[in-house]
């Protein structure tokens, strides 16, 4: 593996390590990291992660930390739009549930949530809509994420619908709007608020979570409670929840109407009808995708020594039916062995023994197929904001 390290020492005593630059093919998504000259930096409570921006903090999980079945809390990616991120005291935190479409608005403490409703534990992938944006061709502006704006965790919390029903839902309810404690520096900057359509808000798998991998949520992942929308992109997983409003009209906020939009009809996945226009619509479900975690790109394998390809595949909530590998540029495909199914929102492990009998370059392509019948495509569906890169992964190894 090619490695180059860059050491920087900040005046605040912060230590940064350079990560490895990894070359990329022109057309197909690489299974490795992102651009060269990456900086590793440890936020409070986190191990060193790939720094995309310091403020607001946007930090990506390195490939090595995506090898475990559950991404560790201190390695889980961090994504914010706004720089005002308060530390919240869990004992005094209150969440308001109200809006024009509930008859009994209420305030809940963390204790109310934990003791008043059935507890649910759910393994699910959290993936940023812009994961892999750095691989777009032509490239697009935005946080230049490689493969690590995602992770898989066991989320624990209560069903949003149990909370909403306690508040007396009215029949005119159309969308549920979520606000978190994170705020903009300037009062005129649009606050980060997101909405869900009622059917998704009332889905039994949509949770208000207070724990991640059996530990309280880390500060930078939304403590003390965040929304979990399994199968939908991370933009809906509002952190540091403070307000939940049920309303009879579409939410008009910037982060729904102007951001996180994709061309209408361009991608498979759930429709969000009340946010749809003829041209664009709100992004919704995660597309079927896969990531090779072993070997790392450009690894040199020893001839005749057994080697294995492994990684994860996931989709927007139907589960994975097959992961296949091609060594002849996609002419023929053979199935990999799938690991245990942890649930339809979880990622699914796959593995395949590699042929190391011949020396030379070994070019691999990996594609996943979902139970819903979606399969990773060869080509990118170009969109202005750089979302939904789920192209077939390619990986070049060397046998010597």
């Amino acid at each position, binding site marked *: 593996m090619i490695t180059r390290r860059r050491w920087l020492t900040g005046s605040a005593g912060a230590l940064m390590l350079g990560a490895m630059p990894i070359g990329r093919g022109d057309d197909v998504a690489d299974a490795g990291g992102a651009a060269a000259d990456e900086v590793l930096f440890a936020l*409070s409570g986190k191990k060193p992660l790939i720094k995309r*921006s310091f403020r607001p903090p946007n930090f990506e999980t390195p490939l090595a930390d995506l090898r475990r079945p559950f991404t560790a809390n201190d390695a889980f990616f961090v994504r914010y739009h706004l720089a005002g991120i308060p530390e919240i005291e869990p004992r005094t935190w209150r969440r308001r549930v109200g809006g024009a479409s509930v008859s009994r608005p209420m305030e809940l403490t963390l204790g109310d949530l934990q003791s008043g409703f059935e507890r649910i534990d759910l393994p699910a992938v959290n993936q940023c809509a812009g994961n892999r944006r750095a691989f777009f061709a032509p490239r697009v502006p935005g946080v230049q994420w490689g493969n690590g704006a995602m992770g898989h965790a066991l989320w624990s919390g209560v069903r949003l619908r149990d909370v909403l029903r306690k508040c007396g839902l009215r029949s005119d309810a159309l969308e549920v709007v979520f606000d978190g404690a994170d705020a903009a520096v300037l009062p005129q900057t649009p606050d980060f608020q997101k909405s869900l359509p009622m059917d998704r808000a009332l889905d039994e798998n949509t949770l208000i979570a207070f724990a991640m991998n059996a530990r309280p949520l880390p500060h930078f992942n939304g403590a003390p409670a965040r929304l979990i929308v399994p199968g939908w992109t991370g933009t809906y997983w509002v952190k540091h929840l403070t307000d939940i409003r049920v309303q009879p009209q579409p939410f008009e906020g910037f982060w729904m109407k102007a951001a996180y939009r994709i061309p209408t009809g361009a991608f498979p996945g759930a429709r969000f009808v009340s946010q749809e226009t003829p041209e664009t619509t709100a992004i919704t479900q995660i597309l079927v995708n896969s990531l090779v975690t072993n070997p790392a790109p450009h690894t040199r394998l020893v001839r005749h020594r057994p080697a294995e390809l492994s990684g994860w595949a996931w989709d927007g909530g139907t589960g994975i039916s097959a992961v296949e590998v091609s060594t002849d540029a996609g002419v023929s495909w053979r199935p990999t062995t799938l690991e245990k199914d942890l649930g339809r929102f979880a990622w699914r492990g796959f593995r395949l023994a590699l042929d190391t009998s011949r020396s030379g370059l070994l070019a691999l392509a990996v594609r996943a197929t979902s139970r819903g019948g979606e399969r990773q495509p060869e080509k990118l569906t170009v969109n202005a904001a750089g979302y939904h890169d789920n192209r077939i992964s390619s990986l070049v190894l060397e046998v010597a």
Partner: protein
Amino acid sequence: MRRVALLAAFGAYAMFACARLTAGEETVHLIDAPGRDVTATRCVTCHSLDYIPMNAAVMSRGSWEKTVRKMIDKFGAPIRQEDVAAILDYLTAHYSG
């Protein structure tokens, strides 16, 4: 999160006095050339300056103009109209692909 209120003067960065930097971002330096100070002081109010080099390869004068307009019109960035040209000149000259 550890925050560093930047009141100490170090060169041009003294002008960031109203921005609250987070640990680490003081290591981000923009290329020293005409237009840097006005660019840095306006942008750093809301975000660390690493957003600029991060996007450089993707950007042109047109896309920087679109971005600066978005910052002013949508996000309320306190950028005076007479500063826009200097900021665009600087970003185009030093942070375009």
